[in-house]
């Protein structure tokens, strides 16, 4: 059976919508102008806050502090910094835990929600989405309380695990897991709602047909639903990967709130910040930022290419 794709990218949907319109050329023209207006606004913002800073970062990374072309000197100096590799190791461990958790728990929860009655499902979606309201600094504050065995409402659990004080909770080997939990806690709810929306796009007839063919709930989830929302999963992983490599707020704030228990160069973005603002070397910092950009682009390109994300059926 050939399964029609239901997970559509925004451009695809608007195109389909445009195709359905049949109320004359004026209406199409007006709709097109509105489209251009929205896209135009986005393009302006993208140029101002996306492309221009990127171009500036590339310019800085390729020039010397006092001016003049530096070739790869800033990159070499950044890569030779004794904090560079550990920072990428930290972020690698963090991403491995976080992305794995996203790809499994979010999907499982979204599939479970989709199988619930609509009203129950809405309540759960709201519940999952709530932590998302406490993004960034606010979530760090919440977690500082949660992780301090002497203040946490979960102190009995922390004590049972052998953590009597926050120094023991924030040991270097625990940090990737802790930051992954924070990120999952704040970000998962939003993605569950997105995945739930994608699952709702699957035609009921298709699921009924699968049921008639003898598919149980698990088979229906794995063989029908998951392949149909694959593109959304990839989209989530691309954004999470790009965001995850730029981790900054959580380690920075936890470090400051605990008088330095987390190094101020724990993540590559923190290292770039340190080099830019403590060493006042924006050029070397830009080299690290450009490296992060390239890493994000390579990761995204691989995923897009392997999963044919932008292919329109």
């Amino acid at each position: 059976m050939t399964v029609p794709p239901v997970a559509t990218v925004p451009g695809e949907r608007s195109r389909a919508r445009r195709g359905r319109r049949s109320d004359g050329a004026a209406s199409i023209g007006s709709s097109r102008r509105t489209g251009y207006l929205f896209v135009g606004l986005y393009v302006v913002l993208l140029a101002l806050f996306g492309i221009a800073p990127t171009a500036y970062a590339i310019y800085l990374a390729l020039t010397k502090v006092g001016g003049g072309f530096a070739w790869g000197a800033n990159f070499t100096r950044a890569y030779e910094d004794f904090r560079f590799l550990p920072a990428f190791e930290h972020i690698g461990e963090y991403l491995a835990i976080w992305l794995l958790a996203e790809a499994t728990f979010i999907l499982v929860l979204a599939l479970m929600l989709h199988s619930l009655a609509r009203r129950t499902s809405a309540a759960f979606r709201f519940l999952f989405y709530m932590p998302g309201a406490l993004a960034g600094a606010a979530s760090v504050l919440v977690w500082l309380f949660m992780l301090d065995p002497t203040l946490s409402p979960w102190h009995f659990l922390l004590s049972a695990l052998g953590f009597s004080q926050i120094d023991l909770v924030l040991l270097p080997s625990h940090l990737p897991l802790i930051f992954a939990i924070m990120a999952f806690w704040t970000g998962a709810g939003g993605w569950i709602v997105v995945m739930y929306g994608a699952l709702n796009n699957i035609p009921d007839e298709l699921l009924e047909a699968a049921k008639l063919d003898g598919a149980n709930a698990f088979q229906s989830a794995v063989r029908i639903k998951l392949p149909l929302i694959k593109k959304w999963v990839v989209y989530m992983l691309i954004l999470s990967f790009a965001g995850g490599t730029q981790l900054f707020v959580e380690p920075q704030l936890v470090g400051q709130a605990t008088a330095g228990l987390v190094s101020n160069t724990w993540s590559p973005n923190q290292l770039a910040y340190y080099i830019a603002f403590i060493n006042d070397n924006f050029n070397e910092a830009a080299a690290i930022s450009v490296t992060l950009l390239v890493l994000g682009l390579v990761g995204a390109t691989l995923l897009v290419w392997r999963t044919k994300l932008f292919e329109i059926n």
Partner: protein
Amino acid sequence: MRTVRSTNGSNRWVRWHRRALAVATCASLASLSFVAAGFGSTGASASTKPTLTIWYDTARKPMVEAYIKAHPKVHVVAVLKDGDSNGDGTYQSAFALYNRVGHGWPDIYFSEQNNDAASLAQPPFNDAAVLNKGLVSSSILNKFAHGSAGLCTIGGKVYCLRNDLAMNVLWYNPALMAQDGITSVPTTWQEWAADGALAAAKGDIIGTQGDSWDADTYYWGNECPLSNETSPGTLLINPASTNCTEMASLLDGVSRTALPVAYMFSSTFGQQYGGKIVFYPGAAWMGGVFPGLGSCKTTNPDCTMAAGYPMTFGASGPSVTGAIGGGLWFVSSHSKNLKLAASAVVWLDTNPASQNISAGFPAYGPDDASWVATQSASGSYASPLAGEPTLAQAFSKAANEIWASWSAVPYANDQIWASDVVPSLASGGTQAAGLGIFGSDAANLARSDGFQVHT
């Protein structure tokens, strides 16, 4: 009555509506700008006053308020900052940006980070103004405690004024000593460590370890070379030195009950240890902290402590001590009112109206007596045991014993200790192991900052 609007009419109405909306928006923005401009104005009288922008931390608030009160003809813009503490780099971040855009610097600023002169006076920041070349007279500079300008002086130029000395003394609680069966105030680190067993038996502590100040307290206090600039650009970092290893062995020999891994300003320290501190080798400013610690009064009716002389390592060990913090006042070289800024710093740092309400022992000698008198009258300190020094005697001796070879460096030693050594100590590691970690990480940072490191 119009019930059906023609297409043209409708378009005209929509266009009119849009124009009205645009005009209304512009008018709103214009009026908002007008109102904002009105709030931003300081009025005719204020605009004729010279303006000083002062960055201060929470503890310096009363001092800045006193300055404002005493100087009604100066328009002060007081900005609360974090004091650049714990190596956060708040000031460095700000100056890096201000240097790029060419404006934004304060006129004077207070720093809790005692290595800030080494950072802010030199490239790439170049912000701190030289004070001993015309801005502050030598007659004033000469009255500061001997050696107090060490952290502020680079190549003979003084870039800051010490607010307080923050030298370490041995704080002791006479009431708890009696309860624990400790009969005399220790004079050597060995006696102090031995008293740890008596204190631990009663659930009391003789200090803490595993916070960012270990190096400042124990290693600086025993001439351990972890941060010694032997010549410009050359740094001695030798954790294998006997002065370092003997102190590490001594600390590792004290039980963790008596010398726990804890941080005085953590949210739970007061609850856990308030009223249980028999001894505390720590800075002069800590004396006022102990009585206010969490459960202090409920566990010990007399939580106040007295100051003893700094301890020596063995009876013949060097009579030296370290320092924790000790604030610094800076004048920005970018100030448009350099003379006024310098005079403000001098007032804040020397005038009794300011120093008497300062938390730490004044670095400016003439203020010491009145500060000690004010502190003694505050009820925050215990009366010394018979034969032990008074607050003034203990502070005065300690102030002159700060080991001057411990150099300020552009990176923050306490940050390295906190992020790299404390986790090791917290998970059961030894001070000896921590020294190795610190030595290696500090050497790496020093090299990345352009130092030649030798051991």
